[in-house]
C-alpha cells in the first residue's frame, strides 16, 4: 500500500465507476482535502462532484456563501440549496456538490455548489486524512490503476 497513485487515471476510473454501474443519475462526490484543490490539481475541474470537509471560518447570511478552512487552505461553498442546516463559526462541516469554475474569474474564486451538507463536529481530521490516503490506495489497486 505504499506505491504512488496515477491521479488522472484514478479520477477517470472513479468517475466512470460511479456513473456507469448504477442506475443513479447522481454522481458520487469524490473525497478531496481542501489543500488538494489547487488549479493544477486533477480534482480542479468545472462540474466535478466533490465532497469537501473543513472548519467554518465565515458565513454570509445575505449571499449564503460559507468559507471553510482545513490544512491552511480555504474554499468557498454556496449553501443556497441547503435546508435544515445551522451554521456556527468554528464548527466542522462537510459538503457534497459540484465545483463551479466560472470563466474569466481567478482560480481562488471557484466555488462548490453544495447540494448536501452536514455538521461533522467530533470528526478526527488527522484520522480522516490518513484513512483517505489508505482508501485511495485500496481503490486504485483494486481497479488496476495503480502506477509504480
Amino acid at each position, binding site marked *: 500500500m505504499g506505491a504512488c497513485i496515477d491521479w488522472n487515471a484514478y479520477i477517470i476510473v472513479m468517475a466512470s465507476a460511479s456513473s456507469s454501474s*448504477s*442506475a443513479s443519475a447522481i454522481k458520487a462526490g469524490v473525497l478531496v482535502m481542501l489543500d488538494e484543490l489547487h488549479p493544477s490539481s486533477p480534482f480542479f475541474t468545472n462540474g466535478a462532484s466533490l465532497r469537501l470537509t473543513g472548519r467554518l471560518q465565515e458565513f454570509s447570511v445575505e449571499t449564503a456563501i460559507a468559507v471553510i478552512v482545513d490544512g491552511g487552505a480555504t474554499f468557498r461553498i454556496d449553501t443556497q440549496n441547503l435546508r435544515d442546516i445551522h451554521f456556527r463559526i468554528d464548527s466542522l462541516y462537510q459538503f457534497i456538490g459540484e465545483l463551479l469554475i466560472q470563466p474569466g474569474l481567478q482560480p481562488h474564486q471557484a466555488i462548490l455548489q453544495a447540494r448536501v451538507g452536514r455538521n461533522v463536529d467530533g470528526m478526527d481530521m488527522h484520522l480522516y486524512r490518513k484513512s483517505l490516503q489508505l482508501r485511495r490506495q485500496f481503490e486504485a489497486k483494486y481497479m488496476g490503476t495503480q502506477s509504480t
Partner: protein
Amino acid sequence: MAGGRSMWEWGLDPMCLSHVKLLSFDLLSLQKPNTRGGSEPFWRKGRPVRKVEMVGVVVSRERKDKFLKFELDDGSGCVPCILWLNHMTNRYYPKTDQLQMESMAAMALKQAEQVQLGRLVRVQGRITLYNKQLQITVSSAVVEKDPNAEILHWMECIRLAVRCYDMSAPLPPSHNLSDAGRKRS
C-alpha cells in the same frame, strides 16, 4: 452450478450468509447472477454475496406510500436503496404472526423518518436487481451520530477485503472429512 461451484459449496461459504461490508465501487461492480429468480447470489471474485452493509451520506430521497427510495454516497459511488413500508398490505410477507408484522412495519416507518438528506446512514440489506440495475433492499437503516463511524467503516471494508473477501472460500465440511479419512487410511 455457478462460478464453477455447486450450490452445496457456495451455499456454505460464510460470505453467502453474512452482511458483507463493501465500499460502493466494490458493491456496484459485483457480478450479477446468471439466472433469474433470485436463488443465485451475486459474485465477488468467485465468492457469493447476498447481503451487504454499507455506510454513506443520503444524497437523494423519494418517499411513496409503499416505500422509501434513497441513495447513499460514500465517495466512490451512489447506491440506490429501497426500504419497503407495506408490510401490512403486501401478500408476499408471511401473515403467520400479526404482532411481529406490526412491529416490523412500525420499525420500517421509524427508520424511514430518520433517513433524511445529508445524514450519515448505515444500511444492511439484500442485493437485488431493479430494471437490470443493482440496489439494496434495506432490512435495517440506522443513522450514525458519530462522523468517525464512516472512517471506521472504510477501514473495516479494506481490512475485510484484503484478509477475507479476496481469499478463496474455506472448503465445506465434507471436503475436510474426506481429507481426514484419507489421512487416516
